[in-house]
């Protein structure tokens, strides 16, 4: 579609524009544009400039450290890494998912629903709602949760409290809001007490109501400017995710399903332990992030999207009533076809928030979460694969250990990696359709960030500094001379530094 913009044919005489870092996303990335004399975009790339190295430095460590060590990849979705690693090391102690004690399975699911709820709430309310409520090219002073709290205090506060509730679920199960311990090989280390259960039950109906209202809100926002929302950064892609055996939405454990842009099934109910037979990764020189693709479709056509939009597109149903009704409504909007609008990620994400809130209520009312049969064990194995639907999409953890229980090999395919090609394609689409030929300004460049932000990328799987990220935009001519430079300071103040 816009692949021709990945690498400009002739890079001489092109101006380079850099958005570094991309703000209101997790981690550190930058966008570079190469423009010709008429400001037409000739090349657009999203670069991930951090190198983390977790796969290397966990080698030599005992496997039971993995869920606690690897979750430090991220401050936003550590639970996802914790549980993906836990699912992998369950296998190292001979425990397959179906053999996990019932209470342990439900407590892990509760933990995960809390995690997805808080992560989605953070992304929608804190990071993306300013763009959606005030406009993509609105004044920069408005593009923060603080402005949302000032203009829409009830809505802003609901977002903050929804996130807090998800974090409280995490704290009750794992001991801490961030980087707790819960999953251990073959189970979990504690169940909920009645007091902890009752504490969480107190507010759950309110959370469901607010989640439901957020779905109504995003539908209204999306439909109020339909052609724009359906077109902006939109790309036709394949979609990958886990589903239940009956094809229903699944976040914790299921088989891999992939559909193409027409909605035809590429693969279904695939055992994720065999992921290597279906998914490969390509490396490109200009970014630290790899490009995964479906082996059966090849490098050119096999790239795919993961995350809320992929999951809602892929699943046949949702097993909680309000979220299912929202899904049916969402699909009616596209007349049952696959939804390719990148901004529909937000809509799908909020359907999932509702599903999480409903699921948390069901689990809190299930006595198994207060059970005492929490750990089991089987025959030792030397390899384990754990896959989970993290907030941002399908997350793969794969480990090998030696006879002394030491990790010898690790492979992680983090959700955002799977969206790498799609994010680049969306950036190129926005660059070509919305920026090309125009004089670049800071608000205009925010369009690029809006496209990236829709994917809720976790660029380093690390925390980000909300509203603190400085941004520098340089316009350099063919002789390398600085023509124009805009700097956004941490305070939000924008300064034009050079124009001579």
């Amino acid at each position, binding site marked *: 579609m816009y692949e021709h913009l990945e690498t400009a044919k002739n890079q001489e005489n092109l101006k380079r524009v850099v958005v570094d870092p991309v703000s209101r996303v997790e981690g550190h990335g930058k966008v570079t544009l190469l423009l010709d004399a008429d400001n037409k975009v000739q090349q657009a790339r999203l670069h991930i400039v951090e190198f983390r190295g977790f796969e290397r430095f966990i080698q030599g460590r005992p496997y*039971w450290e993995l869920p*606690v060590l690897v979750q430090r990849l991220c401050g936003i979705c550590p639970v996802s890494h914790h549980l993906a690693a836990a699912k992998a090391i369950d296998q190292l102690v001979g425990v397959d998912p179906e053999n996990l004690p019932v209470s342990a399975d439900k407590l892990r699911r509760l933990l995960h629903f809390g995690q997805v709820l808080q992560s989605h709430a953070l992304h929608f309310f804190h990071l993306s709602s300013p763009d959606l409520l005030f406009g993509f090219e609105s004044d920069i002073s408005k593009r923060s949760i603080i402005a949302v709290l000032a203009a829409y205090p009830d809505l802003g506060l609901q977002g903050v409290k929804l996130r807090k509730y998800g974090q409280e679920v995490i704290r009750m199960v794992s001991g801490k809001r961030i980087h707790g311990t819960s999953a251990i090989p073959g189970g979990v280390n504690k169940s909920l007490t009645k007091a902890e259960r009752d504490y969480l039950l107190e507010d759950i109906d309110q959370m469901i109501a607010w989640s439901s209202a957020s779905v109504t809100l995003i539908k209204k926002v999306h439909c109020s400017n339909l052609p724009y929302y359906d077109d902006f950064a939109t790309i036709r892609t394949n979609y990958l995710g886990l589903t239940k055996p009956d094809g229903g939405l699944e976040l914790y454990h299921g088989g891999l399903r992939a559909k193409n842009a027409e909605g035809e099934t590429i693969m279904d109910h695939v055992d994720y332990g065999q992921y290597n037979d279906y998914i490969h990764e390509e490396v490109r020189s200009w970014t630290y992030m790899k490009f995964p693709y479906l082996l059966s479709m090849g490098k050119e056509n096999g790239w795919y999207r993961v995350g809320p939009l992929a999951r809602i597109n892929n699943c046949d149903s949702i097993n909680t009533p309000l979220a299912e009704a929202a899904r049916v409504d969402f699909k009616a909007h596209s007349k049952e076809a696959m939804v390719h609008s990148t901004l529909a990620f937000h809509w799908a994400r909020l359907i999932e928030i509702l599903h999480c809130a409903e699921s948390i209520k069901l689990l809190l009312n299930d006595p198994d979460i207060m059970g005492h049969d929490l750990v089991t064990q089987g025959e030792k194995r030397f390899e384990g694969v754990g896959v989970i639907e993290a907030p941002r999409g399908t997350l793969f953890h794969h480990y090998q250990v030696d006879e*002394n229980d030491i990790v010898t090999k690790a492979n992680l395919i983090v959700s955002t990696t799977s969206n790498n090609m799609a994010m680049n394609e969306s950036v190129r689409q926005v660059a070509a359709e919305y920026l090309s030929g125009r004089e670049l300004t800071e608000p205009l460049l925010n369009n690029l960030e809006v496209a990236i932000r829709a994917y809720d990328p976790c660029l380093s799987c690390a925390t980000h500094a909300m509203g603190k990220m400085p941004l520098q935009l340089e316009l350099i001519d063919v002789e390398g001379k600085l023509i124009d430079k805009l700097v956004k300071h941490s305070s939000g103040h924008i300064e034009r530094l050079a124009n001579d």
Partner: protein
Amino acid sequence: MSNSITIDGKPIPFSEGQTIMEAATAAGVYIPHLCHHPEYTPHGSCKLCNVKVNGRICSACTYPAMDGQDILNNTQELTDDRQKITQMLFVEGNHFCPSCEKTGNCQLQAVAYHLNMLDDHFPLFYPTRAVDASHEALMIDHNRCIFCTLCVRASQQKDHKDVFAISGRGLNKHLIVNAQSGLLKDTDISMNDQAAHICPTGAILIKHTAYQVPIGERLYDHKQIDQVSLASETLKHDK
């Protein structure tokens, strides 16, 4: 002879043959320490229990209590010194509390909290140290060894074996095991040995037990090390 010393101005009785540490512990006065354990011969190597006895620095765990001693323990100067010593222990090994399975149950971490250690202060050495996971039930993570010799003493004095020793000098100092292969699996240590459970950090570990105690129920989750230490060591000193 009244058999009395003062610690920070408070009169403390002692019985003949007691060290300052023993007299203080019996009287409910905490003196920070890592290499000291009431059941083993004092070693005096970690220097955290340094106190000022009549103006002179001494290790409380080795120095005998004597009538009329005027001892300073809980002073800013000594706390600052102890904090520096603890910081040095942290930087010369690889102590990554966030993912360490001993976190919440670790004496080194608890002492650091007690001394209000907020950073490493000194540049980290990042030494290259090995993990010996050869034993079926036990593991040595040399990254976390602070050379307190408690495992050495426990193995000799309690288990009546000779599994551990400290070898080398200065920066080359390291824990060794009594086997030609140099591997724990070839020693006669067993999981029930005192030496397997005595490590104040996460250097000697029982395999397959990590993170089983939830956050909130770990040793130092609700109590500081002075409370835990006095509660557990008073009885042992009395023995």
